[in-house]
């Protein structure tokens, strides 16, 4: 089963069957496109509106990637500070938890009051992406093999040597796991931010196209935008999985079977 073509063919066949069933349901019942557009109609809209839709996709992707980069900088940076002084961890971790458990959709309106639209959307995406990076990296930095730590002490390793040659490599698989979660969450954060902002115009992302299409009952376009958001999510996940595989393939159990 591991290497048989069924591993690829089966999920594709299931997906194709679902799309065919969808098309059949729409055709047989003569459903109007504003109730449920057929897959073909969605594809047509995707091609017809490609300029505006892909533009929006780029905006959303850009926000997501930027938020992810800031989440990595903030999350890893704070985790390193946590690891160097437990007192900082005790003092600051509750605040990070509050940031995490407060639904971002509830915070978004406030952000929009204080910040420009673009920045507010970026901050929303950052808030949700930041926590998994922080908590996973902290967990990783605290997971050092105590015997290896003793070995470093015995060899008279400096703090810097212990950090770069022991703690960071130990934390790497944990960090990459957190990053994969953060990638998906950053997209969700960006979408939530865009929906809350609801601003029309040039620089608006895919989520705004969805809201706009819903108001105009342009359901095929709504589906097309939805499809592109899924595609953006898959792209981000695939890119991060590939990164994880590339970094860990030689030594970590999680990546021995090839990229996920």
């Amino acid at each position, binding site marked *: 089963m591991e290497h048989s073509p069924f591993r690829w063919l089966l999920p594709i066949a299931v997906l194709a069957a679902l799309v065919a069933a969808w098309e059949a349901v729409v055709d047989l019942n003569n459903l109007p496109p504003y109730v449920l557009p057929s897959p073909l109609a969605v594809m047509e809209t995707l091609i017809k509106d490609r300029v505006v839709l892909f533009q929006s996709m780029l905006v959303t992707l850009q926000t997501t990637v930027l938020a992810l980069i800031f989440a990595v900088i903030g999350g890893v940076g704070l985790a390193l500070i946590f690891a160097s002084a437990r007192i900082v961890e005790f003092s600051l971790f509750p605040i990070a938890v509050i940031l995490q458990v407060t639904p971002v959709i509830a915070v978004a309106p406030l952000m929009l009051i204080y910040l420009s639209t673009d920045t507010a959307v970026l901050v929303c995406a950052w808030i949700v992406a930041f926590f998994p990076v922080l908590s996973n990296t902290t967990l990783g930095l605290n997971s050092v093999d105590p015997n290896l730590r003793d070995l470093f002490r*015995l060899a*008279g390793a400096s703090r810097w040597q212990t950090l770069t*040659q022991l703690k960071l490599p130990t934390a790497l698989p944990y960090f990459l796991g957190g990053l994969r979660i953060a990638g998906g969450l950053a997209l969700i954060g960006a979408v939530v931010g865009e929906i809350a902002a609801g601003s029309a115009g040039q620089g608006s992302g895919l989520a705004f196209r969805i809201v706009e299409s819903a108001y105009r009952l342009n359901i095929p376009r709504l589906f097309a935008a939805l499809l592109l958001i899924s595609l953006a999510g898959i792209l981000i996940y695939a890119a991060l999985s590939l990164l994880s595989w590339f970094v860990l393939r030689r030594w970590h159990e999680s990546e021995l079977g090839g990229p996920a």
Partner: protein
Amino acid sequence: MASPLLRLEGVGKRFANSTTALEGLDMEVRQGEFLSLLGPSGCGKSTALRLIAGLTEPTTGRIDWNGAEAARDADGRRSIGFVFQEPTLMPWASVFANVHLPLKLAGVSRGKAEPAIAEALELVGLEGFRDAYPRELSGGMKMRVSIARALVTKPRLLLMDEPFAALDEITRFKLNNDLLQVWRQLGCTIVFVTHSVFESVFLSSRILVFRARPGRVSAELSIDPNQPRDDAFRTSPEYAGLCRETSLALARAMEAR
């Protein structure tokens, strides 16, 4: 008798949770010997090893390095190799990089360390595995890498904390033989913690039997260091007799309260 390398005098160790691991421990390590610390689990023999390594400080008593200069290398650093119960390798680094570690931390570059690393790998019979990763190796091979890493700095004192306890018997016998060969070849001092009577008798020139709660030395046995240690010895009546004697000493240590 060989001169002492270090001496523990009245050493006690109490942990923060107020368990007493050691109390009034007097023992010495002599230059060039193969000393086994034998005892039931929880008797403080591993703690004694960590005290000697300087990984933890005694609560009472003192550790006297009378032969201190013999235990230091040219840079004046205390020359100690430590092998843990688990191989304790860095999974992200190749065999070569794992063995390089102690030298790397001392600032010796890859190129400069290369001959020492090659030599250490040859000593443990892993010349062909320098580019392998730990996960690709068997348990016995991982332990060999761990030993090579401890040997790469050419320590005068090698401390081993039940290194072969997790290995199967066949692998353990093989590693026992190879360890003795390394010991003779390098002429270093080895302190070996074990709970196996048979292993301690096969390897040691001297055995200290520990008793538990609180941990201290209960008996001392010497074995002729010139006795060849090979498979013939392992099946000889002398070996059986020594094992019997040691087992009795261990049984007495476990009864004593």
